[in-house]
């Protein structure tokens, strides 16, 4: 297909787990690369050495501000990409790199890691450690529809991406504490348990119908708050879960009923 969008994977200080999560779509990744997106930059997968122009940059990892190359590359990414997506907890919120205090080999002077949103404007965040393969897949399909779809598809894609754009505006700090501060303290928690399921390090247990957060275990990936049905709930999109699931399935070449 000639009308593909261009996508790059920009690797800051992260573990490559988010890229692996993208690859965990298996044949779905091939479908995305065949029909919807050209991968124009990805240090792990593509032999391109400098950040090129692209429609969508998927940025994995936080930025070490003592690492000149990293700072230069994230600035370059903002200049070259139409849409910047913070892919995963590190890029979105710092995640585990928040706990760095320097002194590690072989760059002991590298001690300050910032979510990319502290250095550049971010359009969309995908929290989680890593964000689920299907969340990345859905975002890729929606990004394609937003840039290349019919008017109706553009409207759907915009509606789908809006809460992830709003999360980007919400800030660059995340923690299990968000469940206390922005859900329970706000009188919104109804004890569904979704947060506990979403936590990648099992730091959340449910006690008498409310989340109990082991704050020492929390790695600050932002999955729990983003996944909570009371952080955002866009009826215009989620009420259409059946048709959207079918649409994504069709886009991925899965047979319908």
């Amino acid at each position, binding site marked *: 297909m000639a009308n593909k969008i261009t996508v790059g994977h920009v690797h800051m200080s992260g573990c490559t787990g988010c890229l692996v999560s993208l690859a965990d779509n298996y044949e779905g990744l091939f479908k995305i690369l065949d029909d919807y997106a050209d991968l124009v930059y990805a240090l792990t997968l593509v032999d391109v050495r400098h950040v090129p122009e692209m429609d969508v940059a998927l940025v994995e990892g936080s930025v070490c501000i003592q690492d000149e190359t990293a700072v230069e590359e994230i600035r370059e990414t903002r200049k070259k990409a139409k849409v910047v997506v913070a892919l995963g907890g590190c890029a979105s919120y710092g995640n585990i790199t928040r706990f760095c205090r320097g002194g590690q080999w072989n760059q002991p002077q590298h001690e300050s890691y910032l979510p990319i949103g502290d250095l550049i404007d971010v359009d969309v965040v995908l929290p989680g450690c890593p964000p689920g393969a299907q969340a990345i897949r859905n975002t890729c399909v929606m990004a394609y529809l937003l840039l290349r779809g019919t008017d109706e598809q553009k409207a759907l894609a915009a509606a789908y991406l809006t809460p992830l754009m709003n999360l980007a505006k919400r800030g660059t700090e995340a923690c299990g504490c968000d469940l206390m501060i922005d859900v329970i303290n706000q009188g919104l928690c109804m*004890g569904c348990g979704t947060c506990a399921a979403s*936590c990648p390090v099992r730091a959340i247990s449910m006690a008498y119908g409310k989340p109990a957060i082991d704050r020492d275990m929390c790695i600050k990936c932002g999955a729990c708050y983003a996944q909570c049905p009371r952080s955002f709930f866009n009826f215009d999109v989620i009420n259409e879960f059946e048709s959207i699931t079918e649409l994504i399935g069709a886009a991925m070449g899965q047979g319908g009923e």
Partner: protein
Amino acid sequence: MVLGNYKKAVAARSTDSGILSASQDGGIVTQLFAFALDEGIIDGAIVAGPGAEPWLPEPVVATTRAELLAARGTRYTISPNMALIKEATRSYGLDKVGIVGTPCQIQGLRKAQLYPLGMRDVPDKIALAIGIFCMENFPYQGLETMVEDHCNVKMESAVKMDIGKGKFSVYTERGALAQIPLKLTHKYEQPGCHVCLDYVSNLADVSTGSVGSPDGWSTVFVRTKVGDGVWAKALAAGCFETKPIEEVKPGLDLVTKLATEKITKNQKTVEARASFGLKADGSAKALRNPYL
């Protein structure tokens, strides 16, 4: 639209007396999961099983009929069933997961399917989501107060609790019935329920509850293609007795009335939150709106 999209609505009850012996109403959830389990439509279902204290539910992944039977009946307190949704696909190794939940839990489920940020490999494994009707829920300690202080029944002596016809009822093992006006229970409701805009689990594959149907029967909404498929097979297999909802009393009018009351009241709560506080310039300071 207060009842959501649905393909059909009927009054139904299980044809299995073994299920009905301890079901809340028509045994719909237990029967449908038991059938789906037998047919391989699901590998297991997340249900509210028995917990560590009387009437405290604990979410369990039921993979046998016995485990489903142990989870029968309503407990009016929180069973965070969504907490097991990823674990069901991991430790339990289920490829086809069933889940029963309140409207809010089914909302969490559908959000998890469309935005699976912390839900790797979960979205494609949801095989059957059954939603229940829900006006509000109570924290365990609230339920305990209602039962022990208001109804004067020990939690461990109660064999059934029910809400209907404006009353909260507790039946004891020795045949006594204690009732209090539902009005007395309102102060014990979970605050998070007061912003909920869904009464009949609009986003489930199949939703069910007692309201609208005669005693011992349940009202059932079949909503999605998945729900329609499973329901048709279960009917063909003789799992359920059904009656057209138009022919039973009180029927859908009552469901519509209660749904409208809940949504209207809670919409007002959501709106009131927008001007809950006060800024220095006299303008409104808002609590957070989850629907924006």
